[in-house]
């Protein structure tokens, strides 16, 4: 399986994602933001970081960079595109998934483990997983998901919420919400479910010495689903 990770100026989780994808069997290529063409890939990842310094608005300048034309084309043709953290912000800014990401409610950067609940397994990312609650890691300043009421209705009608913040038992109450996001939303799909944007970093949880191993479960399952 082939994957591609895009490096924007200011990306800083590109290497971590590269390491994770390779570890679980992908043949990953790094792609420079100024390139025109994507290499042939089964999965394209927009990694975390501070593309263009997060200046203007997080993800907004990256969403206009050269390679994004190809990424958008790839997504529209049904290709799998996953955006993590800053990558999620880029997806939102490029219109591939609905909504916006605001500054965290308490105006502080948060780096910690959180639990998330998978809402919908009818998609290539979560299909065949045998549990619903995952312990993932977040590290962001702007992860407070927001959208209009109309958008929310559409998102819910189409089962587009990918994951919610919750506790270890899967309870999705407000008190388990680290950043104030609407309805505890931590990740979201496009209508077709081939594009996934989420704040948590599964690539930081890929061996027992790190924050945990739930990332390994996610990646192993993902490559099996794509095969």
């Amino acid at each position, binding site marked *: 399986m082939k994957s591609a990770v895009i490096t924007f100026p200011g990306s800083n989780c590109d290497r971590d994602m590269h390491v994770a994808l390779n570890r679980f069997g992908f043949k990953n290529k790094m792609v420079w933001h100024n390139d025109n063409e994507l290499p042939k890939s089964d999965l394209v990842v927009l990694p975390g970081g501070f593309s263009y*310094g997060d200046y203007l608005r997080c993800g907004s300048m990256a969403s206009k960079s050269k390679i994004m034309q190809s990424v958008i084309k790839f997504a529209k043709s049904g290709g799998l595109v996953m955006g993590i953290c800053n990558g999620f912000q880029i997806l939102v800014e490029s219109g591939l998934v609905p909504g916006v990401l605001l500054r965290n409610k308490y105006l502080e950067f948060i780096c910690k483990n959180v639990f998330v609940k998978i809402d919908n397994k009818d998609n290539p990312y979560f299909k065949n997983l045998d549990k619903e609650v995952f312990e993932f890691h977040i590290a962001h300043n702007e992860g407070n998901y927001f959208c209009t009421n109309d958008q929310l209705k559409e998102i819910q009608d189409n089962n587009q919420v990918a994951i919610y913040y919750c506790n270890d038992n899967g309870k999705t109450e407000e008190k388990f919400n680290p950043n104030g996001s609407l309805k505890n939303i931590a990740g979201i799909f496009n209508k077709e479910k081939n594009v996934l944007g989420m704040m948590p970093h599964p690539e930081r949880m890929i061996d027992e*010495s790190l924050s945990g191993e739930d990332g390994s479960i996610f990646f192993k399952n993902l490559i099996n689903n794509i095969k």
Partner: protein
Amino acid sequence: MEVNQQIAIDHGLKKEEYKKICDLLKRIPNLTELGIFSAMWNEHCSYKSSRLHLKKLPTSGKKVIQGPGENAGVIDIEDGDAIVFKIESHNHPSFIEPYQGAATGVGGIMRDVFTMGARPIANLNSIHFGSSQHKKTKNLLRGVVHGIGGYGNCMGVPTIAGQTSFDSSYNGNILVNAMTLGLVKKNKIFYSKAAGLNKPVIYVGSKTGRDGIHGASMASASFDEKIEEKKPTVQVGDPFTEKLLLEACLELMAGDSIIAIQDMGAAGLTSSSIEMASKGNLGIELNLNKVPCRESKMTPYEIMLSESQERMLIVLENGKEDLAKKIFDKWDLDFAVIGKTTNTKNIELYYDEKQVASIPINTLVENSPMYDRKWKKTKLPKKNLIKKEEFKKFKIKEVLNKILSNPNVCSKEWIWQQYDHTVMGDTIQKPGGDSGVVRVHGTDKAVAATVDSSAIYCWAHPLTGGKQVVCESWRNLISVGATPIAITNCLNFGSPEKEENMGEFVECVQGIGEACEYLKFPVVSGNVSFYNQTKEIGIKPTPSIGGVGLIKNYKQMITMDFKEINSLVLIIGKTEGHIDQSLFARNILNEKNGPPPEINLFNEKNNGESVLQLIKDNLVRSAHDVSIGGIITAVSKMCIKGNKGIEFNKPKYFISEIEYLFCEDQGRYVIEIDPKNLKKVISILNKNSVHFDELGKIIDKNMIINQKTKVTIDELKSYNTNWLSNYMN
């Protein structure tokens, strides 16, 4: 403008220093030249008050590749790998403008590390604020933490450990010390020594603006009521540009184009160009019209003294300009050939085709002033005579509550949760432990790092305090299973022109030196920050020690959380009941006098090496050193982190229970072992003549001290975790 003595004084130079400049030049300098002298001769750049004493520190050893004198120190971690590291202060700017001051402190130290060819792999910091009651403390703390996070998070370098303290002596002068570790291949280290004639001198990075002019001079003066007016001397950081600069520099360093490279830190273009030429025994010629400027009509004086951030100066091999330019273009960074190396041994500056300065480089460096300042020795204070009956009136549980929630002991999670500590995917011990630990990417090795200071002990008796901080660093590395290798130090003191403050400096340095020598734990880099002083009041002497150690197999790393019920808990090292200068004495008895706990270097080394041996033999389940707050504080943290309790044995000593639990005798560790291994452990400890006691046994949810005292883990947690977040919200 004609230069005269008054203008020199306004530049922070002394009368006799101005005279020396005129004598050396055999003429009166012009304003640009005077600015250059003032930048090179100020305390921050010239170390004129400290050089004499710093020379006495041990700086070499089997593992030392580069000691002090370069951008950072370098140590060998085997297999062709090396760690580049250094700590640096950014105190004065952080008090004036906490966000930018702290952010650029972090940016500056990372630049020092990647200038040497190393990719930064971990950041640490040591930050000190005034009393929690002081009106400025909250905002300063918030600003500094946001600044450190804002810069480090954007760079994608994990912040893995740190230290925060509160003391009223920092009310008018906070301390912000930032430390960075970088990883490099031993044969790919870059230095700042220029070599060869007519080599192009390249400027890369951000454009030069009018920010931070005379920043280094500001950092070399005391504060007064007009301090707010100094805001324009604080630099403004742009971590995004630094991230690009890091990637571009490392890309260029992969080839063989660079002869020498130096970041533009304090005193900007002035010190970077002069240092490179001086080390190579060369001259340097710069055309200032070629310097990329952010603002129009900047004068040579401003260009030379600007401290705009995220800039580097490179001496390149001839003919490599195009190749280098291509890399910097790719990363959207400025690139300009601004001069060349010469054989004149002068720095010569041109602007609008006229020579605007010409100074022999040796007058700026070798001939810079060096002072043997007067200093006063501190006598060891007399021991307090606290009556034993005094202790009886205290209830252990109440005291424990106060100690665990003390601002200097309580959990700092509110702070480190704002730092990205997991990016790069190799952080295997997060903040909150004895040391932060990161794996050496793709290997079985890991590097541990810690930063420590003990201003109270240093203030009570600088010689003992100096030794103690080094020992504390050593212990924190051992407690995670790392073999200590070397330290970097950041020496924060008051005015060297006051005999008491200078005395504190001299004796702390002496103490640091003695401990480093004995423990074979050399100093490879560091910096000195004097004039942490508002009007007549200086801070408590605060040397911050950044220690680095190696774990050969990262799976042998130890954490402090209690692991298993029924494990035995031992305390290594002797408990004698030294209560003076302890947190208990100062905060519960309100007794601020007396000597700090004594340091016995023999025991320190012997105890530490024995604990390390036990860890390497896989006999230790968890470990934690005993520091402020004594045994019970150390054990409480192990309980909280492991969510387990302990039943204490009755102490065998003729000291009161309070003294036993809260005293701060040095050289001690708490370790958890499997009861099955007790014999093995005892035989090793006995063989090494290490004193130990059986402290107790791990149980489920409670800490049980005697018939009367029982504390639940939830109570311990609530004592320890709430203070800071409540205070900040």
